[in-house]
């Protein structure tokens, strides 16, 4: 008997546990771990570009542009097969986390840069007038003010990254979307599983975006 209905709740319920498990084990783990890497590495890149000697800053900028101008999928595959070629056995999920982290760090670096540039000149001048050291100026004055201005934009990149996590399936990590496809292939029913995947993404990103909007208001001086 061929099921011709558009929607069948039996299939929706049947696939739900696997989907939730994939959401927690892959989507959430990659998003959180890669966001942490991107946030820290992005700041490091922004600081190097602002403070390092010109040749060093130029090299960092060059690498950053290469990463941003090539697709994430290509980077995932390059990392996977590159590591295999040199005989390194790294779990695919770890590769996914690091590649996502580095990729998004290059975007977050620009957000930080904008935040640093937005710190008024008078703030820098006040640190000179108070004889503050370079290190203390960055730590106590510039970075805290830059972070405040950038937190919402960084949050929006986290949401983008979250929505791009299905790309991890190209390196054989079974995320929600891949789980939905596999279920579909087995049961010849795709619509329920893929809809659930979309709804789970929506259920997570919408509240997060609201949270970011609230954060934006709270952080205003």
């Amino acid at each position, binding site marked *: 008997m061929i099921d011709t209905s558009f929607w069948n709740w039996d299939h929706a319920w049947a696939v739900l546990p696997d989907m939730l498990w994939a959401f927690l084990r892959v989507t959430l783990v990659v998003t959180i771990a890669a966001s942490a890497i991107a946030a820290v590495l992005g700041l490091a890149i922004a600081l190097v570009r602002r403070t390092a000697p010109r040749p060093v800053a130029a090299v960092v900028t060059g690498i950053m542009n290469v990463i941003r101008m090539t697709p994430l999928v290509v980077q995932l595959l390059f990392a996977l097969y590159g590591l295999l070629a040199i005989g390194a056995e790294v779990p695919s999920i770890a590769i996914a986390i690091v590649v996502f982290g580095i990729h998004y760090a290059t975007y977050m670096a620009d957000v930080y840069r904008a935040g640093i540039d937005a710190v008024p000149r008078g703030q820098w001048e*006040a640190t*000179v*007038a*108070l*004889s503050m050291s370079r290190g*203390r100026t960055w730590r*106590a*004055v510039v970075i805290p003010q830059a972070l405040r201005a950038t937190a919402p934009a960084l949050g929006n990149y986290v949401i983008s990254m979250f929505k791009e996590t299905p790309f991890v399936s190209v390196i054989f990590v079974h995320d929600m979307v891949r789980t939905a496809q596999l279920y579909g292939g087995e049961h010849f029913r795709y619509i329920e599983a893929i809809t659930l995947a979309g709804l789970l993404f929506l259920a997570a990103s919408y509240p997060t975006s609201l949270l970011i909007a609230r954060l934006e208001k709270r952080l205003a001086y």
Partner: protein
Amino acid sequence: MPTEHRTHTGAIELADGDVPAIRFQHVVKRFGDHTVLDDLNFTVRKGDRVTLIGPSGSGKTTILRLVMTLEEATDGFILIDDRPLTHVEREGRRVALKEKHRTEMRKRIGMVFQQFNLFPNMTVLENITEAPVHVLRRPKGEAIRRAHELLEQVGLPDKADAHPSALSGGQQQRVAIARALAMDPEILLLDEVTSALDPEVVGEVLGILRDVAANTDVTMLIVTHEMQFARDVSNRVMMFDGGRIVEEGTPEQIFSDPQEQRTRDFLSAVS
């Protein structure tokens, strides 16, 4: 009576062994093709309160910024306590001094800005204690005690835990004065400190500065459009135009009996 000549070069005769607080020697400052200061020479004695007056663009603020090392002179030398600030002459060449030396020199100098420039991410107390604790390495408890004293002095004893954004412009400028004083500067630079304030709070800020002038021996270099304040606080006035000193003397001399036409024109324009 101190020996003092009214000159057009700004040179002042010092008593023997008297070390000037600030000395400009042939200082030139250019921004691109534009010469802001042209072979400027003057001396400020310790404890002097010198007001710089003159039309905007005459280089007054640039002088303060040079002393604070926010700008670097294109040529010439600036001495603080007879020690070079940023450059020194070696074998006939003008050599830049290291950042470490500049930082040491800077510690003697404080500045209050037109736009206050308080750190918005810190409380009032943190603004005042930041540099004493992290630059002068004073014990935190001592720095906090001193900050409270200073807040008392500027009339804001209950604002220690407020953020600058919660304060009015006049209050912010009073905190900025406290922040500068917390470093116990030998030289205090005041750059149009009332220009950004509402007229009704100008008086309270100037009142505090009058107290500072009366109760300390800090050397002051003041750029202001408040001629009455200049009269009250300063013991010397220098009139600038086109990056040069047009005329200088005591406030009485400059305000009541200016010798130069440009000074008379300027004073009649601002009063």
